C-alpha cells in the first residue's frame, strides 16, 4: 500500500491540471455551442458548406450540429484524444519513472516484488484515470444539459463517458505494456504515443475514405466513435469485447515482461 500512496501523491499535481483541462474543454466547448445558438446563425448550413475532408479532420461527420448532443459529439473527439494521451503517458510513466529518476535501486532493494510494484503502480494510475473520467463525466452532464433545449440526452452522454472510460483503460494498459516491454525506459512514452497518434490518424483516414474499412477494428478511436454511439444510443458490443480483450492482453504482457526484464539502474 505504501507504494500505491506514494504514487498517488506523486501524480496528484498532474491529475489536478489534467482535470482542470478536461473541465475547461467541456465548459468552453459547450459555451461555444451556446454562443452559436444565441447568434441565430443557421449552424447546420454553415457547417454543411465545409468539405468532407475538413469535416473528417475536425470530427464533424453525420452529426446534427444544431443540437447540443450533436455538438458534444464533436467535442468528444477532443476529449477522447486528451484522455487517451493522459492515460497512455501515465501508464508509461508510472512504470518507467523509477528508472528515469534512477530510484530503481532504492525501490527494488526493498522487500517488494516486481508484481507487487506493478499492482501498486497500476492501481494508482487507475485511480487517476478514473478521477479524470469522473471529472469529465460530471462536467459533460452538467454543461450539455445546461445548453440542451431538446429531449434529455444525459443517457447518451453517460454512454459516451462509458466509452471514454474503456478507451482510457485501453490506453493506460498500452502505456504500461510499452514501459514493461521496451527495454529503454526513455522510449516507452514515444512508443505508446506512436500507437496513439497512429491509430488516431487511421481513424481519421477511415472517415475520409471508403477503402480498407476492416482497419476500424484496429483503432480504438473507431471503437468509441461518438456519432455512431449516439445514433445507436449504445456501445457496440463487438467493440466493447475487442477493447476488453486488448486491455486484458496488454495488462498480462505488462506483468510478464516487467517481471522478466533487467531494470535500468
Amino acid at each position, binding site marked *: 500500500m*505504501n507504494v500505491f500512496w*506514494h504514487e498517488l501523491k*506523486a501524480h496528484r499535481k498532474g491529475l489536478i491540471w489534467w482535470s482542470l483541462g478536461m473541465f475547461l474543454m467541456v465548459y468552453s466547448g459547450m459555451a461555444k455551442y451556446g454562443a452559436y445558438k444565441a447568434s441565430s446563425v443557421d449552424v447546420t448550413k454553415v457547417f454543411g458548406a465545409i468539405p468532407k475532408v475538413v469535416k473528417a479532420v475536425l470530427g464533424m461527420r453525420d452529426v446534427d450540429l444544431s443540437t447540443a448532443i450533436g455538438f458534444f459529439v464533436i467535442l468528444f473527439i477532443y476529449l477522447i484524444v486528451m484522455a487517451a494521451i493522459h492515460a497512455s503517458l501515465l501508464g508509461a510513466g508510472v512504470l518507467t519513472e523509477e528508472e528515469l*529518476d*534512477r*530510484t*530503481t*535501486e*532504492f525501490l*527494488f*532493494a*526493498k*522487500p*517488494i*516484488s516486481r508484481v*507487487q510494484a506493478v499492482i501498486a503502480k497500476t492501481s494508482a494510475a487507475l485511480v487517476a484515470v478514473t478521477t479524470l473520467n469522473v471529472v469529465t463525466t460530471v462536467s459533460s452532464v452538467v454543461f450539455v444539459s445546461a445548453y440542451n433545449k431538446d429531449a434529455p440526452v444525459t443517457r447518451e452522454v453517460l454512454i459516451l463517458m462509458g466509452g471514454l472510460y474503456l478507451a482510457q483503460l485501453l490506453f493506460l494498459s498500452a502505456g504500461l505494456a510499452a514501459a514493461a516491454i521496451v527495454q529503454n525506459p526513455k522510449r516507452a512514452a514515444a512508443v505508446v504515443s506512436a500507437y496513439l497518434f497512429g491509430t488516431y490518424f487511421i481513424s481519421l483516414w477511415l472517415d475520409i475514405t471508403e477503402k480498407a474499412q476492416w482497419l476500424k477494428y484496429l483503432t480504438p478511436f473507431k471503437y468509441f466513435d461518438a456519432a455512431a454511439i449516439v445514433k445507436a444510443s449504445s456501445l457496440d458490443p463487438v467493440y466493447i469485447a475487442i477493447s476488453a480483450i486488448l486491455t486484458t492482453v496488454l495488462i498480462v504482457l505488462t506483468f510478464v515482461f516487467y517481471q*522478466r526484464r*533487467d*531494470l535500468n*539502474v
Partner: protein
Amino acid sequence: MAVIETKKLTKYYGKDRGIIDVDISVDEGEIYGFIGPNGAGKSTTIRILLSLIYASSGTATIFGKDVVEYGPEIKKEIGYLPSEVFYYDNMRVKELLEYSASFYKKDCSKRIKELSEIMDLDLGKKIDDLSYGNKKKVGIVQGLIHEPKLIILDEPTGGLDPLMQQKFFELVHEENRKGATIFLSSHILSEVQRLCDRVAIIKDGKIIQVEKMSDLANSNYSQFKLTTTTPLPTGYFDIPGISDLETNSTHASFLFKGNINTVTKKLAELDLLSLFVEEPDLEEIFLHYYE
C-alpha cells in the same frame, strides 16, 4: 552457512561482458571486500544479488535462498547503499526515511533518529537541497534503519568527507559487531584494507583471487630493493614467486611471494651494496593483479 554464495555467476548485456563465472562465498559475520577497477563487474554482481537484473547463467543465493525466487523475502534482511544515490524529488529527508521504513514490518522511528544523529543529518531538509555528501548520508541511514543482517555497500564513501568516512566506518563496524555480515565493493584499497576480513579481486568480469586480508597485507609479499657491486647476471632472479621484477645493471627491485629462503639463498651469493626488504602496500599488490 554462507550468507552470499554465487556459483558460476555470469551476465552478458547483449554481447557485452558483465561478469563471467563469478564464484564468491561470504560467511556469516564477516566483512567481505569486493575490489576491482571501475567497470570490472562489481556493481553488476551486486545488482544480480538484488535481482535488479538477472544472471545469464549461474546461481546466486543469499541466506541459502535463490535471489530471484525469494527476492522480496531475502531483501527484508538486506540493507543496501548504492554507489550513486538518487531519491524522489520534493521529498524531505524525514519523508524519504519514513517511506523507506514503510517497506519493513517493524518500527524504525527510533533507529531513524539514532542514525541521523550519528550521521549528523538534518531531517527537515528537502532532498533536492542536499549536497552529494549529504545525500549519501541519507543513503547510509536508509540502508541501516531496519537493522539488516546483510549490508551491501557499493563504493560507499564517495562524496563523504574524511570525518564522515570515519563515522561511517565506525557505524559499519558496530553493525558487524552486532552480527551483521558486510559486503563492501570498492576500488579504494585503503578502505578495504581498513575494514575487511577477506577480499575478492575482480578484473574484467572475472574473480582473479580471493584472499584473507591478513594474508594479503602481512607475510606473503615482500618488496625487495637491492644494489650490488657487480652487474647482475641476466635472468638471475628468474625464480618462481617473483613478480614486478625491474633490473638495471646493479639495481634490482621485485615483489616476492613464497618461501623467503629461496630468495635469501640467491642473495647470499651476491656481493651486496645495499638491501631493503619491505612490506609492500596493497596498492602495489593489486597493481600486480590488475596487469
